[in-house]
């Protein structure tokens, strides 16, 4: 049986082993790319296997309820830090999303990264390992480690292969994230000390710390620090300003990973750590959370409408879409939370696809100005089809994936906070407006600049077709994914399994 192996560790180490395999091919761009892609595919196969057999994996009822696989070993006993990894339904969905997104990101940057390719691939694989770790870690110190480790490759990715004001953007990205993280680090240490004071045991293990009895005001301080770190990643208004810059100036693969995965680490952290550890404080701050999410949805949609740069527009739409995820978490109710988690995956796929599309257009026309295009439907029909398809998915067309997530979020929130749900509907209308404008100006309308554009290459067609199939599958038949996260969501929101 495969489960005898430390599969979760393999998930993290496999990309790092891939980095080592790249070393001998450092100056050979042609052979380095397939090696990296092969590693990413292997990772995808492994996570797909985990997904395929999650029902058969022995549920670890006795040790940790809801978890399918757990690995645990001492790491730094002097500080009570353990190497604890755990896989439950939510992590599994995120692991699946991660390995899938990295395959897409590597494929989409196949030709566009012309310089220092091996370095690029190494950084991508390192980042994959870091993100896997974030989604698997169950020890707060270990989580923090991975949380920071995944930043470094992204810092280089934007800074080296980015466009425009790339250095400004990448430093801004790094400092914003560090600001929240450092305060969270203090909160993690403080939580551990409080736990040690109560029980005499020094540990950073999530499931031990969950038992800590905390007075309401202490909870509030600690939660505030966690919330800040996660809200910056989310990003919630008014902490979002790094995101448009980072997205716009990142290379396509960077944007895909940023939108598809890095933003999700924020929402994932809130679901896994923030809310369960500090339930009282979370309840107190729920109105604030709702308000920021709503402002984010409406503000980002309006700003998106005014954008001239397609990538920036999609970046702002990302903020709006993540607002729904935020509302679903804030409601902390089984339906809404399932919707949020599903929406995390949906947004990763759809927005990732949109960034791929913009990247492909940028490679051809060397501009992302909306005003430069128009009439693409007649010139590059395949491309335009996918552009329209993913735009429709992004605005929540029933039958495609975003609809399911947003519907569940709003349906669940309606029970808890009808006013919030009602206001969030406004956001959907606004999404419609800016998306229609984008599609109308780029795809339809008259041609504004005579650009010689070629239609999709087989590689690009493959990327987009796969993404579209996943989109439709998640939209038409989300039940298996909902089954996957059902158990953990019930446990988190206080129901039994």
């Amino acid at each position, binding site marked *: 049986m495969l489960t005898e192996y430390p599969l979760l560790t393999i998930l993290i180490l496999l990309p790092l082993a891939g980095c080592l395999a790249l070393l001998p091919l450092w100056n050979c761009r042609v052979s380095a790319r397939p090696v990296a892609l092969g590693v990413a595919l292997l990772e995808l196969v492994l996570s797909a296997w985990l997904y395929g057999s999650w029902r058969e994996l022995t549920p670890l009822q006795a040790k940790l309820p809801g978890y399918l696989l757990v690995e645990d070993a001492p790491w*730094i006993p002097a500080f009570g830090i353990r190497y604890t990894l755990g896989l439950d339904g939510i992590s599994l969905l995120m692991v699946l999303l991660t390995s899938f997104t990295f395959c897409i990101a590597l494929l989409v940057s196949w030709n566009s990264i012309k310089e220092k390719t091996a370095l690029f691939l190494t950084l991508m694989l390192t980042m994959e390992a870091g993100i896997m770790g974030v989604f698997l870690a169950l020890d707060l110190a270990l989580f923090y480690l991975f949380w*920071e480790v995944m930043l*470094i490759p992204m*810092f280089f990715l934007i*800074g080296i292969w980015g466009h425009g004001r790339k250095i400004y953007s*990448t430093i801004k990205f790094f400092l914003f994230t560090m600001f929240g993280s450092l305060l969270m*680090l203090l909160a993690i*240490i*403080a939580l*551990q000390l409080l736990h040690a004071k109560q029980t005499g045991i020094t540990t950073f293990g999530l499931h031990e710390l969950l038992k800590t009895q905390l007075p309401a005001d202490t909870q509030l301080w600690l939660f505030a620090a966690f919330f800040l770190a996660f809200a910056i990643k989310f990003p919630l208004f008014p902490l979002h300003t790094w995101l448009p810059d980072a997205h716009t100036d990142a290379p396509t693969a960077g944007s895909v990973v940023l939108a598809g995965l890095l933003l999700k680490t924020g929402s994932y952290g809130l679901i896994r750590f923030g809310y369960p550890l500090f339930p009282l404080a979370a309840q107190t701050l729920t109105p604030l959370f709702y308000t920021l999410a709503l402002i984010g949805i409406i503000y980002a949609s309006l700003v998106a409408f005014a954008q001239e740069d397609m990538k920036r527009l999609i970046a702002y739409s990302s903020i709006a879409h993540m607002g729904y995820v935020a509302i679903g978490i804030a409601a902390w109710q089984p339906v809404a939370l399932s919707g949020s988690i599903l929406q995390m995956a949906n947004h990763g796929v759809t927005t990732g696809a949109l960034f791929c599309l913009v990247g492909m257009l940028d490679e051809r026309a060397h501009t992302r100005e909306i005003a430069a295009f128009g009439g693409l439907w007649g010139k590059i029909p395949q491309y335009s089809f996918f552009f329209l398809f993913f735009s429709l998915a992004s605005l929540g067309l029933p039958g495609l994936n975003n609809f399911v997530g947003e519907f569940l979020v709003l349906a669940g929130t309606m029970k808890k906070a009808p006013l919030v749900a009602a206001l969030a509907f406004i956001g959907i209308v606004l999404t419609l407006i800016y998306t229609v404008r984008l599609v109308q100006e780029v795809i339809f309308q008259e041609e504004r600049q005579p650009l010689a554009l070629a239609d999709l290459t087989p590689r690009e067609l493959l990327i987009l077709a796969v993404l579209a199939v996943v989109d439709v599958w998640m939209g038409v038949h989300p039940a298996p994914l909902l089954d996957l996260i059902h158990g953990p969501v019930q446990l988190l929101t206080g129901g039994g399994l």
Partner: protein
Amino acid sequence: MSQADVYALMPLLILAGGSVLVLLAGALKPGGYLYELAGALITAALLWSLLLPDMAVMPGLTITPFSRFFWVFLDAAGLVALLLATGYNRRRGITGEEYPATLLFALAGMGAACAASDLLMLFLGLEAFTFAFYILVAIKRDSVKGGEAGLKYLLNGTLSAAIMGMGMALLYAATGTLKLSGLALAANHPEALFLAGTCLVLLGMAFKLSLAPAHLWTADVYQGAPAPVTALLSTASKGASLAALLLVLPLFGAWHGLRDLLWALALFSMLAGNFAALRQSSLKRMLAWSSVGQMGYVALALVAAPSGGLRAALFYIVVYATAGLAAFGALSALSDRFEPDRLDDYRGLGYRCPLAGISLAVAMFSLAGIPPTAGFIGKFGVFNAALRQGETTLAIIGILAALVAVFFYLRVVVMLYMKPAVDSGELRSPGFSEIIALAVATAATLLLGIYPQPLLDLLAKILI
């Protein structure tokens, strides 16, 4: 002095005697294998301290696991600095036997300071290595900056030595003894004279550790000294000074003012160092100011001494030293007949000289406290101790200052990898000894970040 005592003292004897030996050898056969000889002597001292765990008590010196640990640490740092200096000095025309001989002498002084059991020996050790550094800083005789730095260091250093000497005189006047153990007994009922003495000694130590407000010499000296000298000055000398400070800490007894003093030193150093470093355009000056900030975190750990802060401080100084050696090592490996000084000179160097680039980048990430480098574990330990001690305010200020620091450390990485090089083409690749030195320092910085437990265990053992 028995034979066992001599054995225990051997590492110091090797270094001190070796210093004379190198001088003689240089006089007899100029241009011989002096660096190799010095390297062999340091290695011998290193191995001796590592392999022969003797304890000994003799007049003025007590050799304990604590001092042996520091000997190993200092000799290792000295060896790396010597390896860096071989190539660097050849390129920049620093010849003669003075350099290796003085380096050995400095190591001997540091070793004595870490093992002192009375104030006289402590003073002797500290001033011996500081004296050696006066020479090393100004060793390039035709360099204006080096001369200026040497003079500034000499003036400041003499002042601090005078202050520390005065403090020791007051302590002697108050108690009639120079023995640390005797003084620690007197600390239970301190009189004003005694307290004044301890405070003056602390101020002298603050100078050696470049803690604000006794830090003003740091930037000029770091910038003016040759890079391998700065590498040693910013790592080993800091380590030895910290060891000396730990030896005199019992003199404060339970006096609550110590906490306030250290608190203020930590606060000023973290803020002054990190904010001043923001504004520097010279890489060495920036690193100098940043080391003031880094020492602030050591002081923060000392504030939290009752809650495991001592181990945190020692761990921090070790990881700071590995990162410092990697950083200044990269600088010295990148220098040709001239040292690139401005930050702008490092544009694109990460590609033109990959090993030095990686070393410098890893060092920057470690100093910034970003995992998986050792700097993260160091900061983690310091903040863990500080919060356990209840120093929440200082911890929050410290962590925000660390955020400021992230910015200027990243700027170096940006220069190395994200700015186009001024002129392309491979640089002269570093020599064999430099490759070894850089690889060791960088690997240690990464290893201690991933697997710090053995060092943490060792530190817990020597602090008993």
